[in-house]
């Protein structure tokens, strides 16, 4: 392990955040967790700091996407249930 501890901390943090978000994933936590784990493990060999930073950016992006997914899913079902006209 030669990577900087700061980056390592960041990676673990975003992993935890994503894991927490996965608890409300539509297909279930059991679907989400192994896939998230796989996605992170597949990048575990990265040693180059720039590459790791890129990976973190990608994780941030995925986080935003999941947030948007949750919001839209909720908004749409609310709209379907509570807007009677049309």
């Amino acid at each position, binding site marked *: 392990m030669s990577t900087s501890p700061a980056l390592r901390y960041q990676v673990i943090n975003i992993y935890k*955040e994503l894991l*927490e978000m996965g608890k409300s994933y539509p297909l279930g936590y059991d679907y989400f967790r192994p896939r998230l784990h796989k996605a992170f493990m597949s990048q575990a060999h990265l040693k180059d700091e720039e590459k790791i930073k890129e990976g973190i950016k990608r994780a941030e992006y995925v986080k935003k996407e999941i947030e948007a997914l949750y919001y839209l899913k*909720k908004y749409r079902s609310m709209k379907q249930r509570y807007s009677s006209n049309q």
Partner: protein
Amino acid sequence: MSTKLRILVPVKRVIDYAVKPRVKSDKSGVETNGVKHSMNPFDELSIEEATRMREKKLPVEEIVAISAGPAKCADTLRTAMAMGADRSIHVDVAEDKPLEPLTVAKLLKSVAEKEKSNLIFLGKQAIDDDSGQTGQMLAALLGWPQATQAAKVELNGEEVTVTREVDGGTETIKAKLPMIITTDLRLNEPRYASLPNIMKAKKKKLEKKSLKDYGLEEAFRLKTIQVTEPPQRQGGGKVEDVDGMIAKFKELGVL
């Protein structure tokens, strides 16, 4: 010089919107045991609007969230604080005896008086009982102006301009603080209560209270006689060919 806003946001813990509710076998109500709960989606809009007012640099002094219900309501209040509320009040109420809208309105009235609130954001209705009464009752009890089903809220000094969702369009009304606003779907896009924010919210104050602290008792005016599931949808059938279709039509008396 504009007045400082002291915002009160009541939130309700309801069965999660994505869960299909099951009626108890004795038809006395909906099964809540072991079912995922979360904050009423309309209440998320309320918290979000209050938080956005602060982010717009409006003179928001304090945002207080309140919930009445079983111990697990504390989680809902944590979410509210993760989304932007400063502190919260949890009024303990037994899980099997949820309050009726009128009692909630009475409770909120005395909370609002105690906290010196001058703006109250409520969800227009809760997705569990769909009563949609609390905001209106509260406005009547306090004698404050109300704007229900808000799609847009603008504050200018003491004056609040609210665009409301009405049948076939919108209505714009203006009133002075103090005021009650109930939120509708188009008002804003509630933020996601992320893990770091939930952790930070754990440091915020959560007061435990009981109905008695506000000089109230549980009073029940309504009695649930029966709860039943909606009728099952009759599935469509496939026909083999045109003759089959005509035969089916004749059977149904369309032809």
